[in-house]
């Protein structure tokens, strides 16, 4: 067991809502509200959830691309939120990021070489002579040839641009990468290539990843642990194997059942959630999922569910807590009961109106 490289405790990131002439703060968008996790060196934590759940803000808060409002972030023992100036810059060399859209994240006026070497120049890491070598080495690692050096991003396809973005992150020899939807903008046949590359690099270079995605199957494939977010909070977290085999939170189950699959044997009874995700500026009381949860009870509307932990699995849900207690902490029994309860309750209402 190695010490965690990244530790996040009760992370909170609020964005103020300003109104009126004086731009007075009238409320907060609670993008991230009390998120805790840790990632061991060389491991990957997958962060899944729907748009607006705060997963991207978690990544950005760790990197201090946005300033967290509260909580603690530590990286290799350093308190990230306290660092300033040179210390922060040194830290940022060790934590890099790859964004979703390789069309937006690469400056179209810069050559591939200029894009990749920019970080080396900013951090003053090596002489101009060494620089080309390091750029070429990073490019070769990501499967780009040396001939690409003086070309511009528009000459490349989406998959190759994403390789450029990965090379740009790798050239600084970081320990930790935040991968924010790194394959979502790519074509299906290219996604697998980039996923394989990321796994290969992690193994060769001993990298640690925070893999943010809404694609549940890819997250399972890439991650050691997976955390499911809903409306600024983690609702369930477990090893990838445990989460996918025994999902305990009704939201996780609904999310899994909503993914269309080509395999009729694996096609679950779809749990269609009613309504939309509520606004994070005014989250519901109690459990944040209760307005959409088919299993919601009166306690869910009032009391924020505490975390129930098992080895390899943690969940925030009153119903899951009760079922776990009833089954003596047997996750697979509890998961099966919750799945049955949901299947019974979640039949969508039939439409009542006939067309003219």
């Amino acid at each position, binding site marked *: 067991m190695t010490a965690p490289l990244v530790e996040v405790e009760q992370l909170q990131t609020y964005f103020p809502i300003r109104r009126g002439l004086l731009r007075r703060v009238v409320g907060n968008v609670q993008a991230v509200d009390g998120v805790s996790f840790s990632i061991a060196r060389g491991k990957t934590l997958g962060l899944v959830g*729907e748009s607006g759940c705060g997963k991207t803000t978690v990544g950005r808060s760790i990197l201090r691309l946005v300033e967290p409002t509260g909580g603690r972030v530590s990286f290799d023992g350093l308190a990230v939120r306290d660092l300033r100036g040179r210390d922060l810059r040194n830290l940022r060399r060790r934590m890099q990021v790859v964004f979703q859209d390789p069309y937006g994240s690469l400056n179209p006026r810069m050559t591939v070489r200029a894009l990749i070497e920019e970080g080396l120049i900013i951090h003053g890491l090596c002489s101009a002579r060494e620089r080309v070598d390091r750029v070429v080495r990073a490019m070769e690692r990501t499967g780009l040839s040396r001939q690409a050096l003086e070309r511009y991003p528009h000459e490349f396809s989406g998959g190759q641009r994403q390789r450029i973005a990965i090379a740009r992150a790798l050239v600084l020899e970081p320990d930790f990468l935040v991968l924010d939807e790194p394959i979502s903008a790519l074509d299906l046949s290219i996604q*697998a290539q980039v996923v394989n590359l990321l796994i290969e690099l992690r193994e060769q270079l001993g990298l640690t990843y925070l893999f943010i995605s809404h694609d549940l199957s890819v997250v399972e*494939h890439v991650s050691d642990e997976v955390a499911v977010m809903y409306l600024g909070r983690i609702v369930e977290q477990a090893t990838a194997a445990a989460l996918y085999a025994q999902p305990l939170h009704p939201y996780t189950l609904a999310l899994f059942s909503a993914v*269309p699959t080509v*395999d009729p044997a694996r096609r679950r009874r779809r749990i269609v959630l009613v*309504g939309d*995700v509520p606004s994070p500026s005014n989250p519901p009381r109690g459990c944040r999922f209760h307005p959409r949860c088919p299993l919601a009870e009166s306690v869910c509307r009032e009391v924020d569910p505490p975390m129930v932990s098992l080895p390899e699995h943690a969940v925030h849900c009153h119903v899951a807590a009760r079922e776990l207690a009833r089954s003596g902490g047997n996750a697979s029994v509890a998961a099966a009961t919750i799945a049955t309860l949901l299947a019974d309750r979640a039949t969508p209402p039939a439409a009542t109106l006939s067309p003219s």
Partner: protein
Amino acid sequence: MIERPPHPRHAPLLAIKNLVTAFHTPAGRIPAVDGVSLSIERGRTLGIVGESGCGKSVTAMSVLRLVASPGRIEAGEILFSSGGTTLDLATLPEPAMRSVRGGRIGMIFQEPMTSLNPVFTVGDQIAEAVLLHRRVSREAARARALEMLQLVRLADPRQRLDEYPHQLSGGMRQRVMIAMALACDPELVIADEPTTALDVTIQAQILELLSELRARLGTAIVLITHDLGVVAETCDDVAVMYAGRVVEQAPAAELFARPRHPYTIGLLAARPSPGMKHSGPLRTIPGMVPLPQHFPAGCRFHPRCAYARLPGAESGSGRAVPLPAGELPCNAAVPPLHEVAPGHLVRCFHAESLGPPRSAQEIAAGGLFP
């Protein structure tokens, strides 16, 4: 599960025959759709699946005659049989086309924010579609708009009628788009990536709604998507497109039970499926989707195909299978779209000699052809 209507024997609702749509740019002629033939029966759902640039959207735009200049339909027929007459949409004069578009053929686009007009209320926009195609009063059109919002189960329909698109969430906007597409009782709805911009739980709601409306109203749907799972769960028939051509076409159950084209198989193999832990790397399709300016000769998939049979010297990838004597190399001629099983068409010279077919789930679980 919704009961599938039986396969009818009469003329299909829409028959696309050898459609060629090309863009004339300073860089030359770009054939985005190059000889596509498809047909859709009344009340059924046809999925057109493929990656970006395969021509699936341009095919749909050609049916609606919305291909923007410098694009042009160059050849082929688009036969739409409605109300006892058959129209060729490829050559129909624009005024007549206008009564088909949005009337007998409805459309739903990917990005509901850009396809709704931000300065008109939702109710006005639906009513506008009704007023364009029906001789009814404003009040009747507004009543129809309300009825449609109820049909697509938008919450608080009476209040939503007077709201603007920005006041709605993505899923709600897509419901409005569906309401608008269905307002004139179309016989066919073309939905181009209707759920791609939505989250999975909202996608599930919209797909459920589309299937339910299809079953109740008998509207045929052309569903364009890049997601094989969406196709498997919602479509009766599937066409897989690659580089401007249909490479495989079959009833959905048949396609996923016995996929035959190496491209289809490659796509199925490249996706991990949830709950199925994979060891080792994902199987990939090497290379990338060719640009229309650089479509390869012969079978357009051959440079990326693991089963390509090429004359020894030309097999650059090193994976190519040597060419048996008397067989045509994959880069020499365009393989015909031919029937390998009833209703199952494949555009590959070697589809039958690749070994016994495996189902989509066997492929996803790791069983490629031997």
